[in-house]
Structures are given as structure tokens and as C-alpha cells.
């Protein structure tokens, strides 16, 4: 298993680490049993993400993926952020080892969980995730929400 230089850079220098005390939406995915927990905090103004932070317990790929996702959704509208795919994250990281792709899926899921938390707090219907891109819904085991 080998990480790209971009993964290592993102992992060793994550930019938007930490809690947002006054977050408008918080999404948490994963579990300590699986060895990965990601939490993403959003500050939203007029449907636009004006601040985003993350906290991650997990491997270097999990930290790099969540860091990169956080970086990528800043300044996007919520629906643009919703459409961020795990492949976008992988691309931005210059690739991930096969066994670590699920970490990028986790990051995408954390973003969505945070967006839906924001929507729920506002009394809006949560958006529904379509079939996941990585296996088309067949169940690659990456999605905690699938069990």
C-alpha cells in the first residue's frame, strides 16, 4: 500500500481541523469499532457553506479524505456540496490505494450527514442519497448506513 504525495501532504498538514462551536450542521459517520470516525461541522449562510471543519479518528487516508472534503466544500452551495462525490475527493488526493477508497466514501457521507443535519434543524426534509458510486448500491461495506 502506498499513498500519493498529495495524501501525505494533506494528512500531515490538514487545514480546517476542529470543532465549530456554533455550527449550523454536524455530521458524524463511522464507529470506533471500524477504526474510523469522521465528524464534519458546517457554518451555512444563505445556502452557502461559509465555514467547514472536521475531526477524524482514523487512518491517514481517512484524515486526508475528510480534510480534503472539508476544503472542497467551503464556499459551495449546499446542493453543490451534496454532489461532491467520493471520486472527486480521490481525484483531489491524486488517488487512494484500493483498500482505502472507502475512506473517501466516508468523507462524502460525513458531508451529506452534516447537510442533512442542517436541513433537519431547519425543519426541511433530509435529502436522499442515491445509490453509491463505488458499487452502485451492491454493498461494498463502506457505508455504515447500510448496516
Amino acid at each position, binding site marked *: 500500500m502506498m499513498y500519493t*504525495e498529495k495524501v*501525505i501532504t494533506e494528512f500531515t498538514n490538514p487545514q480546517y*481541523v476542529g470543532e465549530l462551536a456554533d455550527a449550523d450542521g454536524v455530521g*458524524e459517520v463511522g464507529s*470506533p469499532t471500524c477504526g474510523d470516525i469522521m465528524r464534519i461541522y458546517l457554518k451555512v449562510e444563505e445556502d452557502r457553506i461559509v465555514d467547514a471543519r472536521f475531526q*477524524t479518528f482514523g487512518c491517514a487516508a481517512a484524515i486526508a479524505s475528510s480534510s480534503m472534503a472539508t476544503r472542497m466544500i467551503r464556499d459551495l452551495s449546499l446542493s453543490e456540496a451534496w454532489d461532491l462525490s467520493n471520486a472527486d475527493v480521490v481525484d483531489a488526493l491524486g488517488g487512494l490505494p484500493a*483498500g482505502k477508497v472507502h475512506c473517501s466514501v466516508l468523507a462524502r457521507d460525513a458531508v451529506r450527514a452534516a447537510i442533512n443535519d442542517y436541513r433537519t434543524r431547519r425543519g426541511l426534509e433530509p435529502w436522499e442519497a442515491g445509490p453509491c458510486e463505488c458499487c452502485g448500491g451492491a454493498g461494498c461495506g463502506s457505508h455504515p448506513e447500510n448496516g
Partner: protein
Amino acid sequence: MNDLDPRPVYMDHAATTFMKPEVIAAMAPYFSEHFGNPSSLYRFAAESRQGVETARRQVAAAIGANPGEINFCAGGSEADNWAIKGVALANRERGNHIVTSAIEHHAVLHTCEWLERQGFSVTYLPVDEFGRVDPADVEEAITDRTTLVSVMAANNEIGTIQPVAEIGRVAHDHGVLFHTDAVQAVGAVPIDVERMEIDLLSLSGHKFYGPKGAGALYIREGTRIESLIHGGGQERGRRAGTENVPGIVGFGRAIELATADIEGHNRCIAAMRDRLVRGILASIPDTRVNGHPKERLANNANFSFRYVEGESILLLLDAHGICASTGSACSSGSSEPSHVLLAIGLPHEEAHGSLRLTLGDANTEDDVDYVLEVLPEVIGRLRKISPLTPS
């Protein structure tokens, strides 16, 4: 590559070691000078044959065996596979049950699982919080269908040394063969196959400054065992394949060096290791030392740092030029929690957050200082990122 510090501090000697100059020197003549096939009849091949037989005597002397009981093979994994499958299959009509422990190396565990798929039954004994197998548990697990007990001499991850002699006695009291994986023990624990009542013992050269791809299985004379690799008559018909003469010669020289002064060597390595452990415990809160406080390999230190995950520790250490490992070295590509840490009772997230530092002959007190300087900062950084860290 991110070269924060180019200085390489290698603290992963349980994963593999460099080859000592004496070992390389011993091997060198066998590459293109004494290159004959030991099975060949002509005098030219006598050099190869003698090289192999000298190594066989060196290995035998290191573990209190007879040279005729030493069988060379390609490494620790092959030795484990051979011992367990070979005994299980050869003694099938006497029984189909094997007793082992939950903290064995995967070369033992996955071999046992394979045998389960072939219709054998296996008992995986639990261990205590320090990783020790209780010989009384072994005794209780033995049935009249048991043909083999396999318990490692020392654990690769947490360094715990097992009560091998007691387990050997229990096995023999019940007429059951006893195998021990001594891959990590050689050079750190004095081994005597007689006193410890060992029937089969696995060795791997690259763990004690010898060559990779060279290993051996001690098989007590008279033990019923099948071959794993069939073919030519090498190793008295027990393990086919043209002998890896340079590898075998290096293996012999390395085990001779490694066992020449185990106590003196341990004293020096353990002093460094103890300072490392004390320093880490003093500077990093919420840290736990895994393994047995006393009955452990002199070079092994294993920690759980709460709230952080192992691989990310490794990679930040790597960014500072420190080579270490987490979980078991052989499966470090996976993000499974360590089966050893789960077996000693750690919760999942701590089983994910271990760091193994294993010292060796090239380490200095400076290396210890350097790790003590870098590690608190690394753990601190990761804890700042972690959602589990209490604020």
C-alpha cells in the same frame, strides 16, 4: 515525499532486520564460487554441502537439537505451515483436533483455519490481559482426538513470552506433539528443545540479522510429519527444492551470532527500551503499555494511545524519519484491529491505536532521545484532530 527529517531511526526490528556484515561475508563465497548443487556427487559440490551442514550444526547448537533434526526451508511462514499441516495430516488417523492460542501469528492462525476447512477442529485458547496462555487451559483443551498443541514462544506484537516449558510438559503428559513458533524468540529467549519439551519449532532468519527467505523447522527425531513441498530428496526427503545455499549459510552464521550472548544483548537492549517506555509514559497521558511487564522480549515496546489510530501515528512518525509499526507487521496494509490486542481485552478503538517500537542492534541512546522528542508532538497533533479526544 515529505522530508521533514531525513534521519532514519529504525525501530521495527520485529518486522525485519538488516543483515550483519559477518552474515553477508559468510554468504558471499556461495553466490558464484561455491555454487554447486549440494545434491550433486562431484567434489566441486562438496563446498555447498559442507556449507549447509555447518549451518545445520550451528542451528542445532543454538536450540539444543541434533543437526539431523534441523530442516531448512524458506522462512517462518513456511515452517509454521509445514509443522501444523504436516503433523495434522500425518496423524489424521489418530485424531483431528489441534490446540493453539488466539494470539498466534497469522501463519499459524490461517493455517489452522485452512485445516478447519479440511475437516479438522481447532481450539483457540484465550490469553490473560498480559497475553499469556495458561498451561492449565492447554491441559483442559486436550481431548483424545488432539494430535498437536501449537503455542508461540514469544508474541510478535506485544512481545509476551509464553510458559513454553510448562506447555510442552502438559502436551507430553497427554502424548500430544508440541509445536512452537519461535520466530520472534530466537536471540532473545534461550531455547532448549529438550528442557522445553518442544517437538517442532519454527525459525526465520531475517528476524535475527540473517537473510530473508531462509528459515528452518526443527523436527524432533521420530515425529510423524508429512512434507509440505514434495519433489526431490533434499533435506533427507522432507523438503524438496534445491537448497538456498547462501541463505542457509547466512542463516547458520546469524543464529550463531544471535545466540552467542543472549543475556548480555538483552541487558543492553532492555535498558534502552525501558528508558523509552518510561519517557513515553511520562510525557504522553492516556497511554497504556501492552504486554507482560516482565515476561516480554527485551526489545519490544507496545503502546495504545487513546483517541488516535495506529496507521496515522506511523505515518506521522515516518514523516519524521521514524520507522515503527502497528498491529502485526505482516498485515500492516489492512485496517483491521489487532487480533492480539483484542485478545488481551482492549476495546476496539484502542486495538486500532497501537504503536509497536522494537529496538535492535543498530539503535543508540540518541535514537531513544529522538523518539521521545517526536512522539509526544505526533500524538498531540492526532489527538487534536480526533473527535474522541475529550476537550
